[in-house]
């Protein structure tokens, strides 16, 4: 049995039947990481010692008869974007400022995962502070796309999608401020969920832009993502913006019929600038939904074109404040260590908030944000979910866009709107380009519609084989 190819449910089945131990499982992944990480640069930190200790502990619990009802991820190895605070395990946010930082506490998401028995393999690479769409802005070097090492894996959670595509982990926890889970998922043919803002606690996750940051699961298929969400979702007394809404069981409802489901197609997303191969892939996906009885509805999101400007003003303003704590006194290196992109966004945000410019930039962006939110509310009166491309272009080559920041920003044109509206979106693979690079789509729903998005995604996944495709490494 090839242990590195397992999904969560397959790994659990094997552990239950004692076909392999948690230690064997963990060792297989650690070996795979050792083999592939030099090429991919997808992990910043691998915590081999801690992982093996946790695996031995899990094996002991399994022997003592501990059940997966009590600890739903017992013995399952995983990895996290390096923005989650992990007690005494280096946490860098992809920045040299934190290259030696050992948090004295755990992020709530990480605490929930280890409480449910999961085993942390390591921390994955990302654009420093989440600032980027290609992982080229990591101070620890870019991550390569496992499908073609000359290409970027997307960003900012590029390491997260790369380690999934390369079978270096079973599941991942990413973080999405303007598309950072969905773009890498689309570029690496993996599944990623950007949750409703407030559905998963942000406590302990290093902030990029507080009003947009969404924590979320990434996996090799939809049912894994659903299972992880059930573990990490929920209110947190340490996060005042986390929602008190009860957590649903996202796994048990994945086989609902979608006959009569109204799927909205935003005309603005399919106009100029959308790559034709992506357009074709989405149309084919629509065909599958139609065959399953879904109804296609034309909708409009009139402020689509304002998304990028609105997003960059709000995100940069918030990040200029969030990154003010890095002064080198209590932890980390001093402000000289900020990379170019971080400095640029801090400068943009500082400017947008400064006296005389606040109304023109920050306040205006917050008002446009209200319009974008209203656009979605209106759209969801006509449809239950929206189907859209994740990115207007397929994966691009390393170095191709780094010199042209505005072009890089425009890659996020379809994803930032979702963060501005605070709604959930599930990204999943829907094809490959002629060059053999992944194409992804996103299924967007109203606030707290994760259950329905996962079901719709699952229905699509059952009808296709994309998730079974693997890069040759």
């Amino acid at each position: 049995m090839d242990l590195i190819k397992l999904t969560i449910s397959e790994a659990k089945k094997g552990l239950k039947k004692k076909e392999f131990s948690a230690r064997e499982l963990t060792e297989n992944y650690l070996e795979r990481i050792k083999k592939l990480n030099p090429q991919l640069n997808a992990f910043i930190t691998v915590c081999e010692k801690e992982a093996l200790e946790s695996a031995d502990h899990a094996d002991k619990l399994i022997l003592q008869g501990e059940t997966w009802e009590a600890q739903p991820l017992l013995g399952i190895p995983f990895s996290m974007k390096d923005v989650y605070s992990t007690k005494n395990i280096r946490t860098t946010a992809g920045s040299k400022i934190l290259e030696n930082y050992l948090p004295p506490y755990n992020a709530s998401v990480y605490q929930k995962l280890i409480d449910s028995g999961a085993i942390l393999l390591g921390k994955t690479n990302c654009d420093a502070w989440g600032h980027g769409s290609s992982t080229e802005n990591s101070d620890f070097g870019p991550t390569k796309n496992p499908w073609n090492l000359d290409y970027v894996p997307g960003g900012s959670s590029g390491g997260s999608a790369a380690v999934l595509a390369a079978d270096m982990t079973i599941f991942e926890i990413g973080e999405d401020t303007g598309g950072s889970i969905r773009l890498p998922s689309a570029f690496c043919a993996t599944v990623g969920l950007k949750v409703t803002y407030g559905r998963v606690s942000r406590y302990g996750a290093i902030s990029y832009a507080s009003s947009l940051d969404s924590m979320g699961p990434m996996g090799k298929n939809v049912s894994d993502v659903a299972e992880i969400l059930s573990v990490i979702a929920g209110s947190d007394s340490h996060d005042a913006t986390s929602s008190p809404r009860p957590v649903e069981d996202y796994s048990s409802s994945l086989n609902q019929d979608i006959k009569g489901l109204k799927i909205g197609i935003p005309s603005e997303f399919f106009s100029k600038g959308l790559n034709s191969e992506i357009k074709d892939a989405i149309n084919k996906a629509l065909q599958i939904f139609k065959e399953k009885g879904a109804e296609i509805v034309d909708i409009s999101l009139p402020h689509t074109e304002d998304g990028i400007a609105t997003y960059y003003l709000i995100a940069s303003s918030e990040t200029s404040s969030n990154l003010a704590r890095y002064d080198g006194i209590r932890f980390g290196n001093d402000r000289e260590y900020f990379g170019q992109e971080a400095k640029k966004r801090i400068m943009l945000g500082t400017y947008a908030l400064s006296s005389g410019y606040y109304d023109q930039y920050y306040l205006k962006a917050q008002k446009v944000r209200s319009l974008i939110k209203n656009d979605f509310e209106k759209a969801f009166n006509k449809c239950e979910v929206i189907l859209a491309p994740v990115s207007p272009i397929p994966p691009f080559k390393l170095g191709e866009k780094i010199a042209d920041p505005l072009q890089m920003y425009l890659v996020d044109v379809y994803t930032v709107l979702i963060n501005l509206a605070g709604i959930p979106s599930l990204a999943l693979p829907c094809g490959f380009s002629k060059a053999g690079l992944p194409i992804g789509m996103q299924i967007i729903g109203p606030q707290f519609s994760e259950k329905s998005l996962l079901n719709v995604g699952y229905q699509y996944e059952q009808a296709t084989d994309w998730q079974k495709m693997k890069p040759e490494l």
Partner: protein
Amino acid sequence: MKYQPVIGLEVHVELKTKSKMFCGCSADYFGTEPNTHVCPVCLGLPGALPVPNRQAIDWCRMIGLALNCQLASFSKFDRKNYFYPDLPKGYQISQYDIPFCDKGEIILSSDKKIGITRVHMEEDTAKLMHQLGISNFHFPKETTFPISNKEKYSLIDFNRSGVPLVEIVTEPDFENSQEVVEYLKKLQQIVRYLDVSNADMEKGDMRLEPNISVREISNLKSQISNELPKYKVEVKNINSFRFVEKAINYEIQRQGELLDKGKTPIQETRGYDEVHNRTVSQRTKEEAQDYRYFPEPDIPPIRISESQISNLKSQIPELPTEKKNRFIKDYGLREDQAFQLVETRKIADFFEEAVKIGKKFGIEATAIANIMINKRVDWSRMLPAELVEAIVKSKREDLPAMELENIISEIIKKEGSAVTNYKRGKSGSMEFLVGKVMAQTKGKGNPNQIRQKIIEKLGEKS
């Protein structure tokens, strides 16, 4: 006087909540080991998030209500962005355009109203300690410590970081330092009555920042009489009423002298040097501070309903001014007596309790007030009943023997049937007679002694 001072005041009051403003660390930092009441939130660690303390918010609102402020039905927290080593996040969570309370007032003894611009909630900074000998300037808010080598550095203790602070800002309504001091004493008394802060100056529970400017009297009579001077000088972080008075007086004189020379004082922040009784320039505002306030994205907005406001109002105790007026009305005290007896809630409560007990012994409230104010008795170590007993005792001793004899004779004459009943063996009648005598003496005299005297008198007659 050629110039009229225009003075406004910002006061920071530290609340005495159990925990800090945005985290569960103990807010009691005084005298603790450094950096032991600190967590990821108040240390500003990456990823940590603030959750506001509802007790602190309520107390801030109660201070506002006690100062006759309006409460904002909708409010929020904002980030005030600036860099300083005592500010761990690089921003302070404060309130910008919608404070919890605004538009209040305090009335001075002269009936002059001091307008309260706003009362808002924020968090304290960490404590900085500076090496002695760096400069002659004493940073009053901080402590200094001697070290042997010449290395210059500052040390930071985050135990105070995140302790809830209420900032109370006045209009520039003061004209002299005495008014400022009276206002401060009233404010201190009010927060102590509310029991929301110890308001202990020594411990830095109250920090004072007057802003001072002066305008020419001649200008007052002309059309621009209400225009404020075009500059103001802020004196930062003063921790005593005496120093605030001295600093203001110093500034009035300094600015007057500059104006005499035809110069305009510059807008700046100064510190008070208590050793030399002077103010020292700290930084000039050549470019105004730009705090880049924006709504705190980590804390959802805060709303209060009318019924919650009523509920808060009902929790406000009788405040010093109302209490003083009631004492004058109900107990016939003089203004100055009442003023002294409402100094603290403890004194006022003691007084009222003593009055209640004293009533049973025919002791007047004014008598209790006199004793307490003149401190003829050290009542601070007594219970109210003990004070009353002491008064009763001292009065008894004061009663001249002849006077008592006369009163007893008179009562025996008046209460013939009680005398007869006593002689028939009804012992209760004796107590009745003693009571009558005591009533006549207004409580003076020892009951046992009186009883003895009555028995003696009745014996003589029979």
